[in-house]
Every structure is written in C-alpha cells, then in structure tokens.
C-alpha cells in the first residue's frame, strides 16, 4: 500500500522576518512527512530545528516555497482547522500545576468543543483512551504538579492525542528526562505512530534513542541543509558525519555514537577476541591519547596490547611483556611511562 505524505514541502525557506529585515535560516528545504512513522529531526544547537518546527506549526510564516498540509497550503487553514490537524508538545513552562491530569488532557479537546468548552461523553471517552494509550490512567486524578517530568511529558502527549490530529510535532520532548523516561517516551511515540497511524515528528539531541526507534531521520545542518531518509540508509551512506561540521567529533558507525576524535601521538596495536572487551579497551586507550590499530604486519614494531580478559591485559613493548590485572593498573603504568 502506498501512503501519501501528510506534509509536503518544496523549496521551503524558513527564518525570521522582523520589520523590514529578513534573516533566512534555511532555504531550498524539501521534505515529506508520512503517517505511521516516527521521524526524528536531529541537528546541532542553532541549526534551525525549532525554526523548522515553528514553521510547520504555522507559529511563524514560511519565507518562501511551498508547504502543503494534506495537499492544501498550510496558510489556507484557519487557526481552528490547524488545531485539528497539528498537535504540539513543547518544552514551554506551563502554569497547569493546579489542574488535574485529566483536566490538562481535556484541554486538547478545545479545538473540537463548543464556545464554553463543555465536554460530552465522547470527549470523556477519548480522554480516558488517550490516558490509557500513554499509560498514565492511574494518575488521571492527580495534580499535574505532582507528576514526574516523564509523566508530565506523557500527559502532554495525551493532550496532543485527544486533539485528534494526523500530525504531532514535538520540540525536544525528552530534554529533561532520565534514561528510563526517555526510552519510554520514544517507545511510546513509535507505538502511537504505528498503531494510530500518526505522522510524528520530533526534534531531539538524543541521538542514541533516535537511531534505535526512528523510522526516518531528518538531519539538519547549516552546511548541508536537510537530509531525509530511513535511519539505516543515512547511517550506512555515512551521512551522520555531516551533522556536526566541527573538527574534533566523529561518528562511530559501528556503535551509533559520536565520540571525540583522538589526536594520538602514540600508536598502539590492540587485539581481543571479545568484542565488548575490545571496544572498552580502545575506549580507555583513546582517552589516554593512544591511537589504536588492529594487528597487521606493518604494525609489528609498535607496542601491542592483548586483552584476554578484563583481569588479564598483556602489554608488549620495547621493555618486554607485562601483565596487568585491571585497567586501573594498566592506565597507571601508561601514565608513568
């Protein structure tokens, strides 16, 4: 089945217009946002992620190009219509601590309720359903102020769900969350995208989680504009290095993490049969500014470290062979030598 995109942009220019001055942050952006997928927008601070999200939510106008929401220009939507198509989750500070969680979620029904915002049975059912979907039904009667940061973010996601929008935009939804909540929120969003066929776009600095759960990645950088694609396609085409155009940082394609580049004056050959042990051995040596190489004939003259077990590290150099029983002992020796 071929799905059509919910949001389509071609040659979009985004930026700010203050008075007569126009400052364009990006131009020639073209992308499509599909339903049923979790899309993660990655980029350095100041790359324009928030500007892009604000443009997509019509908080600020596009400065050029075409932006379509369900095949109709976004600007042609009234505020009310827009609020039924795009739900947002932000990191803004709210004053909603004095509302019960269910009241907070009920605010998401505002685009659908009448002048006085009276809730009907159908609205209550939707609210209960949304609380269930994000897993905070047991907190429905609690004050929003009593929620943990993770639960609060889930409540805001539930608010976006009851808005019944095909698109949900989230601006750094995991910014203040610990690892557990972060993983939960990502997992939740991925599940909602699939189960409720929503187009979910979120900006994040949480690259590890994004790489695991994002169906699509949007990489935004000043130099390369916006690069879109399925996560693995982008990774295996070595696009991750283009995200941060700064010397000193490099993407480890094997492990999916960024790490600082080692300017090793000293070289060392490292070998181990255990993948995990090898990884952490290199990690330790890199921190000591050693450039690690794998075993080959031309490296024969270099010092050599064999990691057999974490308690048996064999270092061979011009002084002979030494065995260390921990990384502590090894690193202490390397420091003094």
């Amino acid at each position, binding site marked *: 089945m071929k799905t059509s995109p919910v949001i389509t942009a071609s040659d979009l220019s985004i930026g700010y217009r203050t008075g007569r001055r126009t400052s364009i942050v990006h131009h020639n952006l073209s992308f499509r946002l599909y339903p049923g997928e979790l899309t993660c927008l990655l980029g350095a601070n100041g790359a324009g992620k928030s500007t892009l999200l604000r443009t997509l939510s019509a908080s600020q106008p596009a400065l050029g190009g075409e932006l379509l929401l369900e095949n109709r220009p976004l600007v042609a939507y009234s505020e009310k219509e827009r609020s039924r198509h795009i739900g947002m989750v932000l990191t803004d500070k709210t004053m909603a601590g004095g509302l019960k969680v269910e009241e907070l979620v009920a*605010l998401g029904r505002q685009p659908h309720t009448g002048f006085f915002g009276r809730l009907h049975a159908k609205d209550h059912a939707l609210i209960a359903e949304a609380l269930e979907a994000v897993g905070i039904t047991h907190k429905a009667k609690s004050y929003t102020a009593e929620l943990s940061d993770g639960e609060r973010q889930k409540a805001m996601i539930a608010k976006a769900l009851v808005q019944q929008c095909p698109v949900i935009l989230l601006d750094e939804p995991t910014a203040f969350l610990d690892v557990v909540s972060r993983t939960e929120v990502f997992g939740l969003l991925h599940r909602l995208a699939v189960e409720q066929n929503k187009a979910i776009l979120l900006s994040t600095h949480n690259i590890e989680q994004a790489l695991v759960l994002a169906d699509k990645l949007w990489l935004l950088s000043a130099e390369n504009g916006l690069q879109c694609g399925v996560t693995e396609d982008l990774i295996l085409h070595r696009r991750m290095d283009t995200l941060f155009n700064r010397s000193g940082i490099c993407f480890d394609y094997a492990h999916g993490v960024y790490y600082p580049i080692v300017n090793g004056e000293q070289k060392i050959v490292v070998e181990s049969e255990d993948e995990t042990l090898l990884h952490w051995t290199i990690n330790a040596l890199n921190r000591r500014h050693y450039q690690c190489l794998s075993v080959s004939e031309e490296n024969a003259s270099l010092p050599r470290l064999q990691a057999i077990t974490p308690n048996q590290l064999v270092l061979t150099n011009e002084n002979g062979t030494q065995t260390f029983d921990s990384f502590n002992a090894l690193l202490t020796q390397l420091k003094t030598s």
Partner: protein
Amino acid sequence: MKCRIFWYIVSLLCVLFAANLFWGSVRIPFRSVLSILLGEEEKATWTYIVLQTRLPQAITALFAGASLAVAGLMLQTVFANPLAGPSILGIDSGASLGVALVMLLFGGSVGRITAGLSVSGYMAVITGAFIGATLILGLIIFFSTLVRSNVMLLIIGIMMGYITSSAISLLNFFATAEGVFSYVMWGMGDFSGVSVAQLPFFCGLLLAGLLLALLLIKPLNALLLGERYAENLGVNVKRIRILLLLSTGLLTAVATAFCGPIAFIGLAVPHVARLLLGSSNHNLLLPLTLLCGAMTALLCNLISVLPGTAGVIPLNAITPVLGAPVIIYVIVNQRKIQYFH
C-alpha cells in the same frame, strides 16, 4: 464536594450582605431595618439610611469586590504570574492618574461630592480612569513581549506605579486645596461613593466586564499552558489578549473610579479561591473568585463601620491587613501549592 464550597460561599455572601444592611455607623434596631426592607413605615432618617446609604453601599461593595477579584484572576492567568494583580501591575495607579487629571484639572469629582453633579461629570471621571487603566495595561502587555521574566515584568509594573504617582503628586502640587482634599479622600477607598442614581450605571458597566470575563473562560484555561500551546489549541492569542485587556481595564477602571484604588482584593482573592477550590480550572475558579471577591468586599465594608459613630475606617487601611498575610502565606508555601508548578 466542589458544589458544597459554592453553597457555603453563597450562604456566607447572603449573611454578609444582610449584615451590611443591619449594621452600620448609626445603630438601628434589627426589627426596624427589617420593616424598612419590607416597605413598612419607619423613622424617616432610618429609612433614608437603610435604603439610600446602606443598600447601595452593599451593592457597590458586592460588585466592586467581584470585579477586582475577577480582574486579578485574569491578569494572573494572562501573565502566567500568580503575583500579578491590578494594584501590583500599576493598573489602578493608571486609573488614579486618570481620575486625578479629571478631578484636579477640571474640578470634576466622584462619590458623594458628585451626587449633585451632572452625568457628564462622573462620566468624565470614569473615562479618565478607564483611559489611564487601559493605557498602563497596554504598556504592561507591550513590555511583556519584550521581557520574558515574570519578576522583571512585575518590577516594571511597580516602576510604572511610581511614575504615575509622581505625576499625581505634581498634579496635587498645582491643584486647589479642595481638589486635593477630595482626591485624598477618594484615594483612601470607600464603597459609599455610588449614589442610588448612579448605581444602575455602575453595576451595568461592571456586569458587562464580568460577562466578558465569563465568556473568556475557555481561552483562559488554554492560556494556563502558555501562549504557544494556547495557539496550538486554536486560540487567537492576540485577540484574546485584547479582550482580556478590555475586560480587566473596564472592571478595574470603573471600580477604581467610584471606590478609589482598593488594594489587595485583586491580588489575594484569586489565591483564596484557588486554595478553597483546589483547582486552577477557570470553569469553577472564575465564578468562585467572583463570589469570594464580593464576599471579601462586604466583609471589609462591615469592618470599616466598626468605630460606630466615631467615623469610618478607610478601606485601604483594611484590605492590606486581610490581603497581605494571604500573599505571604502563598509565597512561603509555594513549594506545596500545586498551581505554582
């Protein structure tokens, strides 16, 4: 449980309203007041006191208290700041400046002094108060787009208050002794300024402002999430801000023009209502704030006649004594109070 609070407040309100009729500077026997209210023949002076003084004064207190409290609540929500209020943000000093301009420069005055005055006289005072209040409110809203920090905004409000008071001092300096006297009397605050003839006009304007506030309950709830969320919920934030400005401006200006700048009701009563209700949901909070404001004003009016024939305590000597402890309590306990987070 929530309904029960409303019943308590409404009954308390009725009791206080009645107390305001039965109790005053002049001692009138209970039975006599009752028979006057039932339209029976009594001593002419007593009849006059009850029907021409106590009744309009109680109605004035009811409406002025409700209006100031509701204005305070709306300001707290729209500025996302629980310490906002008509007096803190300098809005009632704006109204005072308007009143001072009219009173001291054009010799118009309000209250008992205006009883004989033409409609255009007190209209001028109200218009002055309204222009002053909305001007300051507009300036505050303008600054709120420049200054994101709420504390900074409050300080700007206080600064505006200083500027208007220095303008008022200057006006006082050049005004006549009578003008200054009537302005100082007005500044002490008192609910006796509205005559029976002015009452429908006074109540009509405040009713309009309160009605507008009731119509804004839905967007006020959305604004609890902040402007960007409200926008995403389909609220036209700019238009709502203007309507809120109109409503708070009208409520503060009319109440201030007739009763003087009454401090603390607008600031403290919304907190009392929130604490009683245990919710920030305006669906119930706004009506409860309205009732609590009316109740507080009636209570203050009752206290002001305590000295009996010796005279009347100015309202602005009473409201801070009741209001300031509430605010201190709220600030000290803000970690425990949900609506701060």
